Every structure is written in C-alpha cells, then in structure tokens.
C-alpha cells in the first residue's frame, strides 16, 4: 500500500520529467521542505497536518512558479547539465539549510487515531490511512491526466515540450505555461512530502531517497505516461512491501532490483509510450 504514497509523489516528477522534459534533482528536497513546513505549521497552530496542506501547498506552488519562471527556464537547452547542476545545487542548499535550522533528527507527523486505524475485511486488514492515500492518489492523478489531456493548458504544456518556438508563434507564452506547470509539480511534491511525513519519519537528508523512489516509479511506468507512473508506483510499493516480508530490512533493495529488472528487460516501461535505445 506504499504505492499510493509513491504515486502522489511520482505524479509531479512524471509531469516534470515526462511531459515537460526537464530534469529535476531537487524534487525530493522540496518534498522534505514541505514536510517541515507542515510540521511547524501543525506545531504552531495545533491543527492537523491535513489542514496544513491548505497553507503549505499554495506556498510550495508559488515557489515552484517562481523557480521555474526565473531560474529553471534559463537552464533549458540542448544540454542536460545546466538543469542537473542547478536543481542539484538547490537540493544541496535546501538540505543544508534544513540541517542547520532543524537538526538531523528524524521527525514524524501524526493524524491521531487515523494513524493506526484499520478496516477489517476478513482476509486482510487495510490501514485507513494508506487506503486514503491510495484513493487520493487516484483522484489527483485522474485530475492531472484530465488536465494534461483535455484542457487548453495541458495541450499547451505538451506542445511546448515538443516544439517551444512554434507554440510561441501561435500566441502562447511558453515561459508562463511552464511556470504554471512547475507550480503544479511542486504542489504535488508538497502533498507527497506531507503524506510521506505522516506515513514514515523524515529528516533533512531523506529527500534523495524520495527522489529515487519517484524516479523508479516513473521509469517502471514508462516516461511520459501519467497512468503508467501510477502503475509503476504500485509495482514499486508492492515490490518493497513483499520484499520486506521475505527479506526483512531489505525492502528498499528489492525495490531497486525490480527497477533494474524493468530497466534491463522492459526499458520502455509498463505503458510502453516512449521508445528508448
């Protein structure tokens, strides 16, 4: 049931990677930043973390907008190195700022009774919270997929990633569209970060792992397909959970290995949308 969590988180990365074709190495760090913001918000106000989302998500979205508009837009070009470098630099800055202000301790947020509540379905017991995440991830991905496929905005984003100068000729401003897409991506990162902060503990340095899991979900699912990402996240979640059942404390390794198997034998991913050599 980890899949739901990864799906929310990977959706934003799938948007950045697959649709916008930008490499972001700071995605995990932003999720962790969002988790810390939510943590402080709940501590300051006493509200549950879910309400903190109402504040954290717009803040992160605004941040994503500004970042895409004023910084990342400059790095787009034929070479991937500038965007790798800038986003990596941002990740390092966020991580170390958090290390200074928050210490390296593991933190966790709580939803109270929902944390441990479970539905008894006879054969299996399903946690209420993971189940909620699963539904939430379906809803979020559904909305995102609909926006990308059906709306003017979604069409514009997809067109820009194919051929920005032509889109500009048609009277659309690629930079603004991409800035909004960047805002959506970081909003999803924020939801994913807060959700993961409730599910498991987090620390300033856990961004790298979050990024890796999301990336694995995107690749397993197939680059460029949002529903593929959802499937990929489920596969990764199942692999980690089942793996941990058979080899205690090796769940993550099993997840990685499943990812590598997909890379070796099914490099186009589950959706098979993009062919790569």
């Amino acid at each position, binding site marked *: 049931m980890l899949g739901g969590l990864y799906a929310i988180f990977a959706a934003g990365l799938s948007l950045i*990677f697959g649709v916008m074709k*930008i*490499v*972001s*190495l700071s995605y995990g760090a932003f999720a962790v930043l969002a988790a810390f913001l939510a943590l402080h918000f709940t501590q300051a106000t006493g509200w549950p973390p879910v309400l903190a989302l109402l504040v954290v998500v717009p803040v992160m979205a605004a941040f994503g907008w500004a970042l895409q508009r004023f*910084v990342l837009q*400059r*790095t787009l070009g034929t*070479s*991937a*190195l*500038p*965007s*790798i*470098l*800038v986003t*990596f*630099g*941002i990740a*390092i*800055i966020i991580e*170390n*700022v958090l*290390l*200074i202000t928050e210490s390296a301790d593991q933190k966790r947020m709580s939803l109270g009774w929902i944390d441990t509540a479970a539905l008894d379905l006879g054969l299996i017991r399903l946690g209420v919270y993971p189940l909620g995440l699963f539904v939430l991830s379906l809803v979020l991905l559904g909305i995102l997929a609909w926006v990308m496929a059906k709306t003017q905005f979604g069409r514009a984003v997809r067109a820009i990633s194919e051929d920005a100068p032509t889109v500009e000729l048609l009277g659309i401003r690629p930079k603004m569209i991409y800035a909004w897409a960047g805002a959506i991506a970081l909003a999803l990162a924020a939801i994913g970060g807060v959700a993961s902060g409730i599910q498991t503990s987090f620390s300033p340095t856990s961004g*790298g792992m979050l*990024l*890796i899991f999301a*990336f*694995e979900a995107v*690749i397993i699912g197939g*680059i460029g397909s949002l529903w593929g990402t959802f499937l990929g996240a489920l596969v990764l979640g199942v692999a980690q959970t089942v793996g941990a059942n058979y080899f205690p404390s*090796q769940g*993550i*390794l099993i997840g*990685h*290995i499943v*990812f*590598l198997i997909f*890379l*070796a034998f099914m*490099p186009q991913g589950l959706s098979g949308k993009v062919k*790569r*050599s």
Partner: protein
Amino acid sequence: MTMTRPELSPVKVTRWTRTSKFGTPGVLLVFVIMFALPFMTALSNIRPVTDLLVFIILGSMWNLMAGYGGMESVGQQAYIGLGAYGLVVLADQVGVNIFLAVPLAGLIAGVIAFLISFLAFRLTGGYFAIGTWVIAEVVKLIITQFPSLGLGSGISLYAMSAFERDLRIAVSYWIALGVTLVALLICVLLVRSGFGLGLTAVRDDPTAAATSGVDVSRAKRLVFVISGIGTGMAGAIIAISTLTVQPDSLFSVQWSVLMIFMVVIGGVGTLEGPIIGAIIFWGLREALADYGSLYLILLGIIAIAFALFFRGGVWGLIQRRRRFSVFPTGYATSFGRST
C-alpha cells in the same frame, strides 16, 4: 605532423601552442616539486594536499565522462566505494602489496563499471543521472550485505600499519601523486587522440557522430569504464589515507556533488578546468571547514551562479580574454611554409 597535397601549398598542423609549450613542462615541474614535498614541509601539511590530489583525480575523471563523453553521472560514488572496499579486501584479506592493490582496486571498479554501463546506457541525459544514482545505491546495499565486509558499519585497513605513521602519510601522498599524474596523462592523451575528437563529437551530437563513423556506444562505454577505474583508484587512495572504509560516507551522493561542482566551477569540457575547480573547492573547504553545512550552502550558490551565468567556468572566463591552454590538445592549421 605535416600533411602535403601536390597542388596546394603544404598545410602545417600544430598541436602545441605558445602557452602549452610552457604550460605542460610547467605542470611536470610542479609534479617534480610536489614529489619532494614530504621532505620540505611538516607532515601535517601533507594530508590536506593528498585530499587535493584526490579531488583533482575525481574532477578530471568526472569531466572526462561528462565534459567529453556527455554522460552526467550522479552515481560515481559507486566506484569510490568499490575502489575503497576493493583495496581493503585485496590488501588485507588477499594480501596483495599495497602499491599493486591500488591499480587492481581501480580495475575492479572498472570491471563493475563495464557491467553497469549496459544497464545505465539505456537511459540518457537526466534519466541517466538519476539512474546511475540508483545503481550506486544498489551497489552500496549489496556490499553492506556481506559480514566479511563489515555490513553497514564498514571495516578498517590494516595493511598500512606496516609503515610507521610519518612514512604512512608520505606513502599515501605519493600514491595519490602518482595516480594523479597517470590520470591527467591519460586524460591529455585521450582527448588529444582521434578518439577524443570522436568523443567530443558524440557529446555534441550523437547522431551526427554516428553518421560520421564514430562507434557511439563503444566510445561512451570506454570513457565510462576509464572514469570508473580512475574514480575507483581515488576511492582506494581515500581508504589508504583514512585507514577505514565506511559505506555511508563512501557511497554518499556528496561525492558526486563534489565532482559536479568542481568541474562546473572550473570549466566543464576542458582539461584545465577540473584542476582549477579542485583547487578552488579545496581552498574553500580548508577556509570554511569549521562552518560545516554553511560551506555546502555557499558552494551550492556558487555552482548555481556558474551554471546560470558563466557556463564555461573559471577557465572559460580566463580564456575569454585570450586563447590559452596548458595542454597540447587543440589544433591550429596554417598554410604555407611559415610558422
């Protein structure tokens, strides 16, 4: 090298520029002086210089792969770890001479890099970057499965206890110096060769390079493996100079951060850039070591500034005013009999 055609006046190709005629012997002279360094200064000053040399090796190797081969890996820490573990296993558990164990450890890392390349090369650009990171995590998780390798807590190196403390520091310094010399030499020769030309073509446009007869994947694989060997030897040197291998620090993505920042600040795709970058990085570290995280934040800001505003790095800024090169890798053609 002179090529002549019957009708045309002879074309003369010069590889050595006025600056590289002085630059290359200058670098060699620096190496000679550095060889004698342990006799001239207190040994407490030698350890930091060993670190600088490791930085130069790492930077040059990453640059060879990314700057010339166009492969921006974020997973080079895999080979640092493999080299370090390889050295400890070879020197302590197999009993290989320490001087022989360094190149062998590099070779182990190279063999693994060769195997990894088949997986990693399925990805390109940014996907390649994160893919190599995942692979590095897998290498770490697998190595920490073995009780003989100390599981998650690492192992100590005992082979160096054959030397007394002063000599030990000097020996690890000399090994680092030797590897740096060889690494730089290989970089220069590789970039200077026809292969290096093909490689640069692959970086700039793989399709066009393939059309012109460059075997793209073979060229990329070769640099990837060479880079793995060099990085592995750097890892072996780290093990020798710290006397311990610790998986969490050796396989830390911070190493890749270090390599990328060094190369980009110095100047990507030039041979001089990584050396300058390593010196800047090392100087910053020595000056700001007490500030810990703050230093990494500062470094991140500098690297972003360079990526946004000075793509060529420090070396690019120097070259903007005047063509200047330390190593004879360029081409200059002139017609007629002059020059």
